[in-house]
């Protein structure tokens, strides 16, 4: 009577493949890290000594405190910047909103450590602005340390707050606001007592993303922290080890990082559990009628934020085009920096393009079917699949990298030093994004479209190809490009996993940072900027047109 296994073969197959993949390249490596943190120096007996020694070490404790305070401060500042920005975009009649939204989202694809490097170029010890200020006799303390790191995070990660909050502001049912005013609340009171509480879950969700990203980020503190200990960096240093690798202590730091992320997720969940609002706007939420000065103030605010966020990147591009003699800036235009960068080889660039393409394709090939099963075949198994497939998001790239090395440097499968291990790490790291973006599109597609096709005589697999895939295509292409660019600017797992021939652009820049001339580093940064912004700009226009035709 039931069509039996045939009907369930597809979801079961997808679950099996996804679980096998994540088991091998995500859970098993994490288990290895956990194992390393529990083994003694000989790697033979179980012990808590590593945890005790790390937790009694003032340096590492300071690292834990630093990581947490910086991540929390970054989230707080991103919320401070992002919420008013989102409000202006969603509710005030300011011009150029599509441009504002696109530019606000831009920092998400730009490599954040390039932003950190730009800050050094401008306000560092030998920075351009620092120099100018000092020549004018104005004392200026440099930007290194926590304040610089928080500044970079706030201005590169604030879009994580803006995007969900704009959507939330737009979906507030206008009649509850009208009810508040009808009951005598002033506009200010209404915002405070009705609108903001309704969008709070989205703000918190955005803030949490900032917190997690800031916690796991490797490049920004590497550039700016100097001797301040930061967990993600210290884990890397301990593992790579200038004298000897210390996987035990690195493992402990990795476990601490994961524990912090999980704790943050649980706290957010606890806050949101008591506030579940199913608000849905019946129509478009109207723009607020505000006075022209208010409107101008809103526009000025948004443009200021965007300029502040993007100027560092523009600076890097400009600096890369200037002439340097050794470390000394000559103020003449030249392409020497690029020549110097690619003097030895173009491999870093071709590697980046190749690895990012493979990773984007891999994440989509696994992620889209997973999303399909999660959305269309609701069951306990698919709910579990959803959790497992999105959990890599909570694991720092450095930790995953360490785990992969521990798991695959010996034994049944040796992958260290290959391109494959890098691509696998990228796929694991980008899978949550791939699954989430694909399921977001699937939620937009009425399941009865697929049923209509089957009803008209087209078998399920053919229906998937003829109806579902074309309807998802815009989203899949968008997801592919976003995966590509975020992999291209990935540093935290790359830095652990790369080997000589598989040096990427991010590694090239990372290495150039240690050199003397800012020219080469900024040239590498410029190449990265071009290779992240250009693809997004291309599909952004494509997606816009696609969306418009769907209206």
């Amino acid at each position, binding site marked *: *009577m*039931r*069509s039996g296994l045939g*009907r369930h073969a597809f979801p079961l197959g997808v679950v099996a493949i996804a679980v096998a993949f994540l088991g091998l390249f995500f859970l098993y490596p994490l288990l290895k890290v956990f194992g390393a943190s529990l083994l003694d120096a000989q790697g033979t007996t179980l012990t808590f000594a590593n945890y005790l020694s790390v937790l009694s070490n003032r340096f590492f404790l300071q690292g834990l405190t630093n990581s947490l305070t910086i991540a929390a401060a970054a989230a707080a500042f991103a919320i401070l910047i992002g919420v008013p920005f989102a409000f202006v975009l969603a509710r005030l009649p300011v011009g150029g909103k599509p441009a504002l939204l696109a530019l606000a989202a831009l920092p998400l694809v730009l490599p954040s450590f390039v932003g950190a490097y730009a800050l050094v170029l401008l306000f560092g010890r030998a920075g351009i602005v620092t120099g100018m200020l000092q020549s004018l006799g104005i004392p200026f303390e440099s930007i290194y340390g926590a304040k610089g790191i928080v500044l970079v995070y706030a201005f590169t990660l604030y879009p994580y707050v803006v995007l969900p909050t704009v959507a939330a502001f737009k979906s507030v049912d206008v009649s509850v606001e009208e009810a508040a005013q009808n009951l005598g609340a002033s506009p200010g009171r209404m915002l405070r007592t009705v609108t903001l509480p309704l969008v709070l879950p989205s703000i918190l969700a955005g803030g949490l993303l900032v917190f997690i990203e800031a916690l796991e980020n490797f490049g920004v503190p590497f550039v700016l922290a100097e001797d301040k200990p930061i967990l993600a960096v210290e884990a890397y240093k301990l593992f790579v080890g200038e004298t000897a690798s210390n996987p035990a202590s690195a493992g402990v730091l990795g476990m601490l990082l994961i524990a912090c992320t999980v704790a943050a997720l649980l706290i957010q969940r606890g806050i949101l559990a008591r506030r579940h609002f199913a608000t849905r706007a019946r129509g478009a939420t109207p723009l607020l009628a505000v006075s022209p000065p208010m409107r101008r103030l809103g526009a000025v605010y948004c443009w200021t934020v965007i300029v502040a966020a993007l100027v560092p990147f523009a600076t890097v591009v400009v600096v890369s085009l200037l002439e340097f003699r050794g470390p000394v800036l000559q103020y003449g235009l030249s392409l020497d920096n690029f020549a110097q960068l690619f003097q030895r080889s173009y491999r870093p660039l071709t590697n980046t393009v190749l690895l990012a393409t493979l990773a984007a394709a891999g994440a989509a090939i696994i992620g889209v079917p997973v999303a399909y099963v999660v959305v269309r075949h609701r069951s306990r198994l698919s709910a579990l699949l959803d959790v497992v497939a999105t959990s890599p998001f909570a694991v720092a790239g450095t930790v995953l990298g360490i785990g992969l090395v521990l798991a695959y440097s010996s034994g049944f499968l040796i992958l260290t030093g290959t391109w494959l291990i890098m691509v696998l790490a990228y796929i694991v790291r980008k899978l949550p994004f791939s699954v989430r973006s694909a399921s977001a599109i699937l939620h937009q597609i*009425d399941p*009865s*479209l697929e*049923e*209509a*096709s*089957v*009803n*008209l*005589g*087209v*078998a*399920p697999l*053919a*229906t998937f190809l003829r*109806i579902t895939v*074309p*309807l998802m295509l815009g989203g899949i292409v968008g997801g592919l490009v976003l995966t590509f660019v975020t992999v291209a600017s990935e540093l935290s797992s790359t830095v652990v996993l790369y080997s000589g021939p598989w040096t990427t652009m991010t590694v090239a820049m990372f290495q150039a940072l240690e050199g003397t001339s800012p020219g080469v580093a900024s040239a590498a940064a410029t190449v990265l900027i071009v290779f992240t912004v250009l693809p997004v700009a291309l599909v952004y226009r494509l997606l816009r047109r696609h969306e418009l*035709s*769907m*209206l």
Partner: protein
Amino acid sequence: MTAITIEGVVRSFGVLRAVDDVSIAIRDKEFFTLLGPSGCGKTTLLRMVAGFCELDRGRILFDGERIDTLPPHGRNTGMVFQSYAVFPHLTVADNVAYGLRARRIAAVEVDRRIDHALKLVQLENFRPRWPHQLSGGQLQRVAIARAIVIEPRVLLLDEPLSNLDAKLRVEMRTEIRRLQKTLGITVIYVTHDQEEALAISDRIAVMRSGRIEQVAEPRAIYEQPATAFVAEFVGTSNLLRGTIQQRDGEMVDIMVAGVSVRTRAAAGLVGDRVVVSLRPEALSLLAPGEVLRAGWARIVGLLSEVEYLGPVTRFTVQLADGSPLRLMALAPPATAGEVIVAFDPGRAIVLEGSA
């Protein structure tokens, strides 16, 4: 040209029995409606016929040949979805051609049949249009054309009119009925709108909690409801408790609201407690000085509410035991205060069980 047999069909979702041992025989070329409140299992049953919902037990046959084992794409049913499900990335013509191309029909023939189907739904000039350029009613027509163009064995319609405005709804239902007669096709139609069901069906199955309450022609559903649920769900009804006092062949005397009412009742023994259904339009107010017609029953009550609705007036009379009696009349009542409600006892319907 297909007769549909549904035999002992069961489907549970967890502890909920969505469809609970349903058997129906639908005749060839019949317009058959599944009517019931949301959650009664009517859509689940329809989706079982289409193949989108598995059967826990039972079987479904088209012309005596079992189809519930076939995959949904091999059943040759034409389904019209509540949301229309018109493919947004295909033009009107490509939407209509979709099922024909799946059947590998020659291009010339496909072309001819698209024209024919679009003519039937009055969209001749819409071939190159995109779905986003169409109104709700036009999308509905595309969905119907797409379903009938494949010459399905049965046409399945899942609340097809619920997204249209009231006026268009009446127009479209007439058109669907006309189309069904022209094509001579068997239709299963799902709706929760009793007026719609009464207007277009050959027969109606009223469903409740996964079970069939009654299968009958529209008139019989309304005039001889089998259960209190049917009496209340289809139209409105006054349900009064009564006791059978005397049986005389087919006829019984029932004591209800303090009066003895003589009416037809097949079942029930003397002393049984029953529910009596009285339709509002079967009741009338006795004007002052008017004489009660021979054989009619009368109940005295207090006029408590009057609702003027334009063509008709609805009012409520409070009976001595406090229960309300709803009446419908063409003219507003001329009296107030204590009134006499008169009715033909033959129009009182005896239902078993409690209301």
